[in-house]
């Protein structure tokens, strides 16, 4: 698919990097390149995925240490240039810790690590991350997290609602997230963070293809 390359960031403790790369290459024929967290040269990738896992062992707080890696420092310019960044699960936690997205992700209300398929409402078309050109749509994606309860103060929540920054909401809130939030974008729309795993829903063989569109939209022109 053209000559665009998606960078897949690898932190010590990332464990969905290969899944993301497999889904992009194998299901969508999109070229990928692994980016080690110590690299700060993002010049040869057109979009970036921060994959799920337990970067730096989730020490201190999920995503807290990753924020100080050279790669995340370089991400600021990348995002400002309008290029697309997708943070999945631990990637979403890193995006909130580093201030690219507002709010924070804390321990699930019931303290369980939840591994399940969830129904999600696509709320906003900002950034074109979801195929919701018609009316409001629902998709099904897997979740797998212990600390996925989205939390923000009421002012931030109002801003998210008013500016249409809420991308996805759980139909049946599994973790106690504020306002059932499962994913949000930045104001420009080029950064999306979500707890569900689109890369695990890219083939009918493994239970669904509702994640394909979001991955494909990484190289949206």
């Amino acid at each position, binding site marked *: 698919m053209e000559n665009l390359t998606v960078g897949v960031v690898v932190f010590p403790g990332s464990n969905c990097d290969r899944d993301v790369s497999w889904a992009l290459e194998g299901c969508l024929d999109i070229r990928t390149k692994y980016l080690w967290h110590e690299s700060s040269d993002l010049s040869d990738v057109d979009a970036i995925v921060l994959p799920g896992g337990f970067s730096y062992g989730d020490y*201190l*707080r999920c995503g*807290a240490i990753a924020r*100080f890696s050279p790669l995340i420092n370089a991400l600021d310019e990348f995002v400002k240039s309008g290029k697309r960044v997708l943070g999945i699960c631990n990637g979403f936690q890193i995006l*909130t*810790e580093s201030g690219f997205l*507002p*709010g*924070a992700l*804390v*321990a*699930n*209300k*019931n*303290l369980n690590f939840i591994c399940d398929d969830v129904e999600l409402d696509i709320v906003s078309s900002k950034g074109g991350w979801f195929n919701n050109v018609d009316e409001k749509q629902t998709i099904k994606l897997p979740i797998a997290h212990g600390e996925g*309860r989205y*939390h*923000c*103060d009421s002012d931030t929540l109002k801003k998210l609602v008013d500016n249409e920054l809420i991308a996805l909401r759980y139909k049946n809130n599994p973790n*106690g997230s504020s306002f059932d939030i499962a994913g949000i974008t930045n104001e420009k729309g080029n950064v999306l963070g979500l707890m569900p795993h689109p890369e695990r829903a890219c083939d009918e063989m493994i239970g669904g293809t509702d994640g394909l569109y979001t991955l494909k939209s990484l190289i949206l022109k």
Partner: protein
Amino acid sequence: MDQFAVKVFVRLRPSVLDPAGEATKSASIKLGAEGIKSLRIGKMIEVKIEGNGENEVREKIDLLCDRLFANTVIEDYDYSLEKL
């Protein structure tokens, strides 16, 4: 250079639900402890640090707390400082 022992306490903000604290409170009651009105779990971080006087060290610790030790979206912090 003076050396200081610093104890940083990081707590979830009162508005943030603490399910681990709730679970521990429930276990405490099962243990037979009576009268527990609230139980919340935080973190304590011990740092030994040197600098030119207390003010300089406080500046360093403030930066560490604000940017690394605590996520001020969900947590508050305070610390005690002792000259060694």
